[in-house]
C-alpha cells in the first residue's frame, strides 16, 4: 500500500508546505511559466539554476502522419533539411552554437510531432533562440544540399531497416495494423518515395507547417525570466504568422470488422517473430492512465507478466513485449514476440494468447498495480535529474496531452487507477475485438545452423 498514501502525501505537501515523514516520497511540483506571443507561438519555461546549462526545444505540431501522399518519410526528410540553413544560418550554425561550445543538438520526427532540441551552456541561450527563430522563419536550400541530405536519410533507412534483421517486421506492424489512417505509412519512408521527393516540396512543407502558431517553445534551466521574455519577443516575435489554415489529417480509422492474418518472409532474421495488434484510443483519452499501467504490468521490467511467463518460465520467447502506443488520433495495443530458438511459432502464439486470456479474465493483482505505480514514480524522479528530461516532459504535456499541468498531475491520475480499471480497460479494447496478426518467418533455406551443437575447434 506504499504508493497508496504516496500521492496523497504529495498533494498534502503542496498544501501544507513540508509535511513529510519520508522525504523520498516527495515529488516537488514543477512550477512553469507560460506565455503566448502575438503570432501564436506558445512558450513554456522552468527556471532552474542547479547546472549552468539550459535545454531549449521547439515542438512543431506536424509529424509523419502529415507526410504528403506518395511521400512517406517526407516529414522526417524535412526535419533533416531544417539544419541546412537560410540566408543567415549556415549548415554549420547549429553545431557551432551547441556541440562546438560544449552543448548538443538533435531532432526527432514522431507520428504527430517533430521536435528540435538543444542543451547549451547557459550563456548561449540568446544565440540559440535566434537560430531557432531563424529556421522557423525560412529555409534557403539548394539542390546540392537537398540531394546530399536525402542520401543521408536513405542511409538512415538502410541502417534502421535494411541492415536490421527485424527492420522490415517493425515497419509491417504499422502498415498492416491501420486500414486507412496515415499512421500506417512508415515515418522512415522508403527509398522510392524519398527519391521522388523534390526541393520545392521542402519549401512548401515549411510554409504550411513551420510557423509560430503551429509551434511550442520550451526553455528549462539556467536563465533569467526577463532575459527570456526579451529574447523571445525580439527573435520569435519577428516571425510572421501566415494567414492560411493549417491542414490537419481528418481521416478516421474505422473500427475493424474482421481479424487479419499477414505473413511476411525474411532472409535476414534468424528467429521467427510475430505481433498481435488491437486498435486503441487517442493519447488524450480518459483511458490513457489505465492503459499506461497495463503496459507497465504486462511488459515493464523483468518481473513483468510477459517476461516472466514467455521468456523466463516457458522459454518460448527470446523477447516479449506489450506496448500501449497511444497517439494523437488513435493508438495501437501491440504485443510483439521474437520466438526463442528451438521453439515453434505456434507454441509461442499459444503461450501469448493464454497470457492475454488470463489478464482479460482474472485482471491484475494489487501487488502488480503498486509495483507499476512505484516504477512510474522512480521514472518521474529520474526524468527530473536533467534540464532536458524536464523540458521533454513539459513539451509532451503541452503538445501531446494539450495540458501543460500534466507534468504535475500525471502521477495522481495513475495513482487513482484501480486494479479493476486496468482489467476493464484491457477488456474494452481487446476482448471480442478484431486483431491483426503479423507473422515474420525466416526463409527456411537460408537458416544456417548456428547453435550450441557446433563442436569446439
Amino acid at each position, binding site marked *: 500500500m506504499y504508493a497508496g498514501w504516496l500521492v496523497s502525501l504529495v498533494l498534502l505537501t503542496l498544501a501544507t508546505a513540508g509535511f513529510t515523514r519520508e522525504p*523520498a*516520497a516527495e515529488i516537488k511540483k514543477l512550477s512553469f511559466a507560460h506565455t503566448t506571443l502575438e503570432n501564436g507561438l506558445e512558450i513554456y519555461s522552468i527556471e532552474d539554476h542547479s*547546472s*549552468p546549462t539550459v535545454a531549449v526545444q521547439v515542438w512543431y505540431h506536424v509529424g509523419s502522419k502529415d507526410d504528403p501522399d506518395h511521400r512517406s518519410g517526407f516529414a522526417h526528410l524535412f526535419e533533416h533539411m531544417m539544419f541546412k540553413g*537560410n*540566408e*543567415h544560418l549556415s549548415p554549420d550554425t547549429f*553545431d*557551432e552554437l551547441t*556541440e*562546438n*561550445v*560544449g552543448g548538443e543538438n538533435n531532432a526527432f520526427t514522431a507520428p504527430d510531432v517533430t521536435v528540435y532540441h538543444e*542543451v547549451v551552456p547557459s550563456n*548561449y*541561450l540568446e*544565440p540559440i533562440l*535566434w537560430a531557432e527563430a*531563424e529556421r522557423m*522563419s525560412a529555409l534557403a536550400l539548394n539542390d546540392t544540399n537537398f540531394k546530399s*541530405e*536525402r542520401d*543521408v536519410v536513405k*542511409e538512415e533507412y*538502410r541502417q534502421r531497416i535494411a*541492415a536490421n*534483421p*527485424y527492420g522490415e517486421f517493425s515497419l509491417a506492424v504499422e502498415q498492416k495494423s491501420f486500414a486507412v489512417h496515415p499512421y500506417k505509412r512508415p515515418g522512415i519512408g522508403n527509398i522510392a518515395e524519398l527519391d521522388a521527393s523534390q526541393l*520545392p516540396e521542402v*519549401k*512548401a512543407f515549411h*510554409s*504550411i507547417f513551420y510557423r509560430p502558431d503551429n509551434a511550442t517553445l520550451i526553455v528549462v534551466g539556467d536563465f533569467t525570466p526577463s532575459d527570456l521574455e526579451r*529574447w523571445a519577443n525580439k527573435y520569435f516575435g*519577428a*516571425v510572421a504568422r*501566415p494567414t492560411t489554415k493549417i*491542414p490537419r*489529417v481528418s*481521416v478516421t480509422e474505422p473500427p475493424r470488422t474482421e481479424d487479419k492474418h499477414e505473413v511476411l518472409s525474411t*532472409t*535476414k*532474421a534468424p*528467429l521467427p517473430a510475430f505481433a498481435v495488434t488491437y486498435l486503441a484510443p487517442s493519447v488524450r483519452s480518459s483511458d490513457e492512465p489505465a492503459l499506461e499501467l497495463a503496459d507497465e504490468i504486462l511488459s*515493464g521490467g523483468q518481473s513483468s507478466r510477459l517476461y516472466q511467463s514467455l521468456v*523466463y518460465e516457458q522459454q518460448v520467447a*527470446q523477447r516479449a513485449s506489450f506496448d500501449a502506443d497511444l497517439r494523437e488520433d488513435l493508438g495501437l495495443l501491440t504485443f510483439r514476440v521474437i520466438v526463442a*530458438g*528451438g521453439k515453434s511459432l505456434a507454441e509461442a502464439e499459444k503461450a501469448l494468447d493464454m497470457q492475454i486470456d488470463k489478464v482479460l479474465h482474472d485482471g491484475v493483482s494489487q501487488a502488480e498495480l503498486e*509495483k507499476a505505480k512505484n*516504477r*512510474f514514480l*522512480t521514472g518521474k524522479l*529520474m526524468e*527530473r535529474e536533467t534540464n532536458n528530461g524536464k523540458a521533454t516532459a513539459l513539451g509532451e504535456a503541452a503538445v501531446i496531452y494539450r495540458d501543460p499541468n500534466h507534468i504535475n498531475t500525471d502521477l495522481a491520475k495513475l495513482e487513482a487507477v484501480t486494479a479493476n480499471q486496468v482489467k476493464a480497460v484491457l477488456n474494452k479494447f481487446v476482448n471480442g475485438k478484431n486483431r491483426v496478426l503479423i507473422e515474420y518467418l525466416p526463409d527456411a533455406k537460408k537458416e*544456417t545452423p*548456428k547453435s*550450441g551443437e*557446433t563442436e*569446439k575447434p
Partner: protein
Amino acid sequence: MNDAKAYLLLPLLWLSLAQHSFGIGGVDTAPPPAAPRGFNFTHPKEAKLDNGLRVIVAERLNLPLLAVELIIRTGSEADPNNLAGTANLTGSLLTKGTEKMSAPEIVNAVESLGGTIFSSGGSDNSNAGVLVMSSKAEPALTILADVVLHPAFKQEELERLRRQLLDGLRVALQQPSSLASYVVGRAVYGDGEYGHAAGGTPESLPAIQRADIVKFYQSYYRPDNAALIFSGNITLEQGKGYAQQFFGEWKTSEVSSHSVNPSLANWKPTDLVVDMPEAGQASVNLTKPAIKRNSADYYSGLVANAVLGNGFSSRLNREIRIKRGLSYGARSSLDMRRDSGAFTASAQTKNESAVDVALLLQTELKRLGTDPVEGDELKSREALLTGSYSRSMETNQGFAGQIAGLAVFNLPLDTLDKFIPSINAVTAKDVTVFASKYLMSPTSLVVVGKAAAFLEPLKKNFPGTRVIPQAELDLNRADLVKQK
C-alpha cells in the same frame, strides 16, 4: 479524407516568407554569447572497510534518488582459454538466484520498490547495482548484497541464460555492424586476452560449465578487488554504514588476481572482408591497437580522436556524411583498457560505396598527422569533450559511472576534477604528435557486407584483403576461419 495533397499546391507562400532580407530580430548573425558559468559538481569521498572494500560516496542531495554500483576489477580478459563469455555469464547470473531467493523473487522485489537491479561482466570489470528511490536504500541493498555475496549459480539458471544469450547472438551476428565489432576484436587483439568476444560465441557459450563460473567467482569476486559506489541522496557516513552493514561479512579469499597479458608487440595489420550476402549495408572499419587507460597521452588521445571522429562536426562525419551523404554517421573511438585498447574509425554505408568510405576513413586518418588542427577546430572538440563530460555528471547513474570508470583502473578520485583542465590544456601540437605516435602506422581494414557489391574495387585499393564467407567465420580463432 486525407487533405495532404492540397498543400503541395501552395509553393507561392514560401516565396513570400523567404523574402525576409533582415535577420530575425534585426540580427543577421548569431548574437554573441554572455559570460560563461563554470560547472561545479560534488567531490566524492571515500572510506575503506576492514575487509578491504573501497566505499565511494557522491553526496547529491537534490533528488530522493540513489544509484549504487559495485564494481569488480576483473572481467572478460580473465575468461579461461576457449571459454569466452565466462565473466559475462558469472556476472549476469548473480541476479538469477541466491541461496535464499529465486531469480523471479529477486527481480520482483527490486521492481516492487520501483527500482532496477542489474549485473554483468565486460572487459576489465564486472558489476552489479541498483537504482532506487533513496527511501528504499535498505531493502534494495539487502538484495544487492545477497546477489553479490551469495549467488547460487543454479544449473537450471545457467542453462536458461545460456539459451537466451545464444539466441541474442544469432540475432546480433546477422547485423553487419555488430558482427564487425566481433571481427574488429580479433583484428586488433588476435589471440590476446582481449581478442575473444566478451559476450561469448556460439561455440564457447555451450562449453562453459558451472564449475568454470564458480571458479571465476571465487577468484575475482573479493572485497579487495572491488569498489562500492553510491551516488545520490546519501552522506558518506550513511554510505559507510550501509557498506559495513551489508558487505562487512564479505571475506577475502586467497586466490591471486589476474594480470593481462596481451601479445600486441608483434601486431600486424590485416585487411579482411566478411562476406554477408544478405547484408542491407556494409560496415566499414579501420582499426589498430592504441593506448592504455593510464597512458600519459590519455587526454591528447581523447582530443585527437574527437577531432577525427567524435561528434557531428568531426572530420569523419563532415567528409562522409555531411559532404557526401555516404552514411548516417561516421565516427572513431579509442577504447582504453588496462592494456592497450583499440582505435577504430567506422561508418555504415550502402554496400556499393564501401570502398569510397574505406578510402575516406584512410585519408582522414592520414590527414590527422599532417594537417594541424586549427584554433577553432581544436577549441570546438575540447568543448565537445568537456560539455559531454559535464552532462554525463547530471544524473546519479552517470556520476556513479564516471567514478566506476576510475575505480576499475585504480585511478585517484581527484581525476574527476582534472578532466576539464587537462582537456583544455591539450594543444594542436599534442594532437599531431599523438596521431603520429599511435595512428599513422598501417591499420587493419574490416568490412562486413555484401562482398559482390564492392570486392573488385576494394581489391584494387587493398590488394592483400582476405575474404571470409559468413558461413566460414569462426570468432574463436585469431585467423577467424573455421577449420575444415
